[in-house]
């Protein structure tokens, strides 16, 4: 048996060169003592952490959790769409007003100066119809422009001119006005 084993061993060795092929990470054996010593210190640490639960804590724990869950499960409040809309109307109205004022004040305001030329005839007629004018208003406006005109003083008008004017107008119209 020994001879047969020797023969087989020689064959295996000739083929495999007595090497397992296994290897280790570099320097694996260098600090193995430290690694094992650290593990030994860990082994000395207490296994128990010292915490303790009340004796009956785990008895019926399922029932206690379930009852807590059921109590805390409140009825869901239903909010109707109609009520919500009605509540929102005053806010929407207020928001619209604020928006309208803001747009008029900031957005649609232009720097273009208003002149008499920029107004249409229709706008002026509407204004005259809708506002009561008195002579004071007119005198304030015309004071500087027209009333200082010397042309309107009767002393400066020549007699011939007055006569021509009287001759030119219709006498019946004058008589009617006097009457």
């Amino acid at each position, binding site marked *: 048996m020994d001879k047969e084993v020797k023969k087989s061993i020689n064959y*295996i060795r000739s083929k495999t060169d007595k090497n397992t092929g296994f290897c280790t990470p570099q320097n694996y*054996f260098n600090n193995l003592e430290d690694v094992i010593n650290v593990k030994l210190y860990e082994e000395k640490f207490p296994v128990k952490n010292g915490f303790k639960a009340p004796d009956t804590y785990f008895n019926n724990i399922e029932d206690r959790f379930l009852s807590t869950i059921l109590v805390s499960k409140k009825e869901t409040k239903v909010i109707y769409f109609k009520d919500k809309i009605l509540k929102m109307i005053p806010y929407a109205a207020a928001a619209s007003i604020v928006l309208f004022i803001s747009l008029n004040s900031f957005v649609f305001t232009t720097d273009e100066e208003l002149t008499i030329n920029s107004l249409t005839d229709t706008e002026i007629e509407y204004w005259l119809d809708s506002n009561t004018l008195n002579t004071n208003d007119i005198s304030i406006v015309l004071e500087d422009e027209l009333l200082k005109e010397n042309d309107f003083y009767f002393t400066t008008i020549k007699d011939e001119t007055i006569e021509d004017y009287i001759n030119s107008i219709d006498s019946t119209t004058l008589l009617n006005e006097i009457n």
Partner: protein
Amino acid sequence: MTDEITFIAELKNSKTKEKAFCTLISKYKERLYWHIRKIVISHDDADDVLQNTFIKIFKNIDKFNEQSKLYSWIYRIATNESITFINKRAKDRCFDISEYHKELVSTLHTDVYFSGDEIQLILQKAIATLPQKQQLVFNMKYFDEIKYSEMSEILETSVGALKASYFHAVKKIENYIKTQTN
């Protein structure tokens, strides 16, 4: 022999235990690693088992009765730790132990810590086909050249039974290699 008795006494003395234990690790770490590695195959697993082995030695040194050599006792712990580890792994993965061993070896070519060539891979596959006891005997005799008498102490098996195991192992491996290489 006197040296070993003194060393064991140092290991058992609480004042000198840690220092003596560091010496023990330095002395046996490589031999034990390679013994374990051949059983569990992967480096990471061998590292785990090696650490557990030394911790077990540290904790149980007082129970060492000195009827066998310290070396044999340490080797026995390493062997038992390795076999327990690999059996547990096989069980966790629902494998029969012999099937699990073949599975481990089948992925060896992708292991970064295997640098063997094709024939060495074939040798590992051949070893994986053996029953666990024959694997142990072959590895210890062929690679580590442990004497039958020492192996008998480590594995707690008679020398005759070990020789028979080795004979069967060698014949199976020779046949496997011939089949794979011819």
